[in-house]
C-alpha cells in the first residue's frame, strides 16, 4: 500500500502530467526562405489575375451538341440538381466502444463488482453526438451501485481535441435509497503529446455543486496485439457536498492496470487490477463514518467495439 504522502505526491504529479494538453502545435523554426504563409491559394491567385484574356488555342473536341460558350457557361455553373455528389465525404458514422466491461473481485470480504465504462458517438468528422456511461454495481451482495451517463455535443476544435458540452445523469442506489441528479458538463477530450488519451470533465450539478474529473490512459504495445494499459481517474470537488459525503479538494482516485489481447481490433479480453482510494476531507468523512477509504480489486473483462 502507498503511504498517504507518497500517494498524494504521485497523484499530484499524475494530475499535472495528464492535465497539460498542448492545444497548439510546434512552431516552426524561422529561416531565410519563402514561407507558406505569404503564398497565394487558388482563390487569391485567381483574384490577382482577373481581367486577363486567354490566348488563342485550338479548340479541343467538345461535348456533342455544345458550343464553346455553352461549355464555359456550364463550367461556371453549379452542377445539375440530379447529379450525385462525386464523393460521399460528409457521411455520418456511429461507433460504440465498451472500453471496460469487467468483473472486479475484492481482496477481502467486500462484495465483488460488475463495472463498465462505455462510450459512443454518432456524427461526422467535426460535429458529433457523444455519450459516455460508467458505473458499477455490487454483484454478490446487496443491490447497490452507481452510474454516471453523459450526453454531449462534441466538436473537434483542434486536430487532437474535442470540446464537449451537455448534461450528465448520475444515480446511486442501495436497498433503502435511490439518489439521482442532473449536472451540466463541459469536457475536453483528446490525445495529449506522448499519446496519452485524456478526458477532462467539469460538472455543475443542479444544486450548484462544482466537481471536476480527469481520466488518462496510455497504451503500451508489448506486441502487435498485446497491450498494457495504465490508467488513472482522479476526482475533485470545489466545495463540500455533505449529502454526497464529499469534502472540497481532491476526493479520490482509481489507478488501474490492464493487460489486453486484441484478438481483433474490436475485441480484446483483458485482466487487470484497480486500486481505489479516497483522499483529503472526503477520506476523513468516510473514515469518521467507519467506511472503507481504499480498496484493491483484481479484474477481468472484455473490451469491444462495434
Amino acid at each position: 500500500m502507498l503511504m498517504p504522502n507518497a500517494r498524494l505526491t504521485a497523484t499530484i504529479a499524475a494530475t499535472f502530467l495528464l492535465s497539460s494538453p498542448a492545444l497548439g502545435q510546434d512552431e516552426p523554426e524561422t529561416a531565410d526562405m519563402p514561407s507558406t504563409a505569404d503564398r497565394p491559394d487558388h482563390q487569391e491567385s485567381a483574384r490577382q489575375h482577373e481581367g486577363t484574356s486567354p490566348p488563342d488555342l485550338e479548340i479541343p473536341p467538345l461535348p456533342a451538341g455544345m458550343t464553346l460558350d455553352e461549355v464555359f457557361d456550364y463550367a461556371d455553373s453549379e452542377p445539375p440538381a440530379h447529379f450525385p455528389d462525386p464523393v460521399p465525404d460528409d457521411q455520418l458514422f456511429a461507433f460504440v466502444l465498451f472500453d471496460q466491461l469487467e468483473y472486479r473481485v475484492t481482496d477481502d470480504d467486500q462484495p465483488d463488482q460488475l463495472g463498465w465504462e462505455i462510450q459512443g458517438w454518432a456524427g461526422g468528422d467535426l460535429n458529433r453526438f457523444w455519450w459516455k456511461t460508467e458505473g458499477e454495481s455490487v454483484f454478490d451482495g446487496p443491490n447497490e451501485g452507481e452510474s454516471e451517463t453523459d450526453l454531449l455535443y462534441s466538436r473537434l476544435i483542434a486536430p487532437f481535441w474535442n470540446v464537449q458540452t451537455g448534461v450528465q445523469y448520475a444515480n446511486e442506489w442501495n436497498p433503502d435509497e435511490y439518489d439521482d441528479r442532473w449536472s451540466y458538463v463541459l469536457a475536453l477530450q483528446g490525445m495529449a503529446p506522448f499519446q496519452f488519451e485524456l478526458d477532462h470533465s467539469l460538472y455543475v450539478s443542479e444544486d450548484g455543486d462544482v466537481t471536476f474529473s480527469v481520466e488518462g490512459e496510455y497504451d503500451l504495445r508489448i506486441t502487435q496485439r498485446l497491450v498494457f494499459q495504465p490508467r488513472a481517474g482522479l476526482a475533485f470537488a470545489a466545495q463540500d457536498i455533505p449529502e454526497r459525503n464529499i469534502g472540497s479538494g481532491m476526493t479520490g482516485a482509481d489507478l488501474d492496470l490492464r493487460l489486453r489481447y486484441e484478438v481483433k481490433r474490436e475485441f480484446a479480453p483483458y485482466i487487470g487490477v484497480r486500486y481505489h482510494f479516497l483522499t483529503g476531507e472526503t477520506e476523513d468523512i468516510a473514515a469518521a463514518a467507519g467506511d472503507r477509504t481504499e480498496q484493491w480489486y483484481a479484474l477481468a473483462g472484455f473490451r469491444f467495439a462495434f
Partner: protein
Amino acid sequence: MTDKLPPSRPKAITRRQFLVATSASAAASYMLLNRPAWAVTSDMARAGDFGELDATAGDGIDLYLENRDLLIGGQPGQAIAINGSIPGPVIRMTEGKDALIRVHNRLPEATSIHWHGILLPFDMDGVPGISFAGIAAGETFTYRFPVRQNGSYWYHSHSGFQEQRGHYGQLIIDPAKPDPVDYDVEYSVVLSDWTFENPHTVFRNLKTIEGYYNFQRPTLANLDDQMQATGMTLGEVIEKRLSWQRMRMDPTDIADVTGATYTFLMNGKTADENPTFIAEPGQRVRLRIVNASAQTFYDIRIPGVPMTVVQADGQDTKPVETDEFRIAVAETYDVVVTMPDDKAYTLFAEAMDRSGFTRGTLAPREDMSAAIPEQRRRPMLTMADMGMMMKGGMEGMKDMKGMDHASMEKQMPHPTGDELPTENLVNRIEHGPDKHGPSSITMAQSAYRRLDYPGAGLGDDGWRVLTYSQLRALERPPLRRPPTREFDLHLTGNMHKFIWGFDGKKWSESDVIRFQYGERLRINMINDTMMSHPIHLHGMWMDLYAGGNLDTNPRKHTVNVQPSELLTVDITADAPGQWAFHCHLLYHMEAGMFRTVAVVRSLEGGSIDADA
C-alpha cells in the same frame, strides 16, 4: 486461361466472336448469381481470366458490368466483373480514330467508367456528379470520343468504392506513328489490391479506429529489431520513439490499409497463382504496368534482370535503366526487359509497407518459377518526412544538390501576368503557421523538393531505384510555355481521425478551383501530411517539374507527392468544362481529398461552391 496478351500486336476481335463470348459469360454469370449460397465453389470461375477488345475498330465494344462471385486466390469473393472478369478486358484503341464503348450496367446500383489519363470532352470523362449523372442500374451509357494520344493507361469506376471490388482494367492506345519503343512481345500487368471485407466496412474501420490495419507498429517486442536495423542503442531507439510519441505520430503509418485485409493481385491473381509471361531468351519484353490498387503502392523489380523504363503515364520517356521502381496508385509505367536466358525470373511487386506482395514469372515456358525474394523490413518514416533539416546539414545539403544561388533567393509567386521561371525552382519553402484547422495535422517544418528521393524503404539495397528526377520526356510535348499564374495547394489530413482534404477542407466544404481557358498555370503542391498522395488531374496533362526544362520535363496524369514534398506541376488549361482533381488513394478520395476544377472563360467574379 489467358492472363497474357498475344505477342506484339493486338489481335482484332471480330464483333461476332465478341458477341458469342459476352453472351456466354452473361449466361454463366446469371447462373452463378442465382445459385444458392451454399453451393460449392469448385466450378466457380477464377479472377484473372480477361480478354482484349478494340474500341476503335468496327462499331465499338460492349462492356457488361455485373456482380459476380469469383475465386480470388482460391477464395470466393463478391466482385464487380467487367465482361465476366476482374480485371476487366484490356481495351485497345488506335490513336487518331474514334472510340466507341457501350457500358451496360447490370449492377443493382449506379456505376461509371473513367478513362484514366485520357484527353476527351468533359461529358465523356465518367465522373458521376461532375461529368455526368452516372449510369443508373439497368441502363446503358455510350462513350464516344476521338483518341488524341497513345500509350498505356487504364480505366476504372468513379462511383463509390466499386474500384476496390475489381471494377478496373487496362487501356492501351497504339500510336498512329511508328512506336519509338522496340519490343518483341508485350504483356499487360495490372496490379491491384483486393479485400474480402465490404469496402464500406474498411472505410468505417479507418474512420473509427486509428491504425486499424497496421500490425507493424512500434512495440516492446520489436525494440531489439529496430536496434539491429538501425544500429542505434536501446536508449537511442527509445528516445526516437518518444519523440514520435510526443508528436502523437506513428512512424510506421506507411499504409492505411494493409496486408491485414488485402490480398495483393497481379492480373487478378495472387503470388501463389503465379501469372506467367512467356518470352524466349533474347526477346525484348514490354511490360505495361498499371497500379489499379485502391490504396497500395508497389515496389517492382525483377531480380537478375534490369528494366528499361520507356513510358510513364502513357508518355514516352527517354529510356532509363533501373533495377526497381515504386509505382504509386494510378500511375502506369512501361518497361522493356530482355530475357537473359532460358530460365524463369520473378516479377516481384512488394507492397510499400511490406505487409505483403504479389508476383508473376517471366519464363520461356508455362509452369516455371524462380525464387521469390525475401520481403524487406517495413520502413519507418524519418524526420526528413517532416521537412526537418538534419543537424549538421547533411540532409539539407543533399536536398540543395543542384540548386543554384538564384533559387536561394526568395521566390515569391508572381501576382502579375509575368512569366514564371521554369528551371531551378525554389527548393524549400518554410511552413508558416498552420491555418488549416482541426482537419489538418501539420508536423512539417518545411516543404522541399524530393525528386531524388526514391521513397520510404527504398534506395539502400545496393541496386538502382528510379526517381522522378530521372524521368525525361522523349520529345518536347506541345503547348508548353512558361506559366503566368501560380498558386499553392496544401495536401492536408488528420491521420488521427482519417480526415483528408486540400487546404484543410474536404470536397463538400470547398469551392471550385478555376483555371482560365488557355492559361498556363502552375500548381505548387505542398504535402503537409506524413503520407504519400498520388494526385490525379482529369482532362489535362500535368507537366511535372522533374528538374529538367520545358523540353524535357515529363507529362503525367498522376503525380505522387511524398511526405513534406514540394512538388510543382504546370498545366495548359486547354480543356473547357468541369473536371475532377483528387488524391487517387480511394479511401482518401472518398473522405474528401477531392476538388472540382472548372476550366472557365474568365477568372472574374468569385468561385462557386463545389457542393451546391
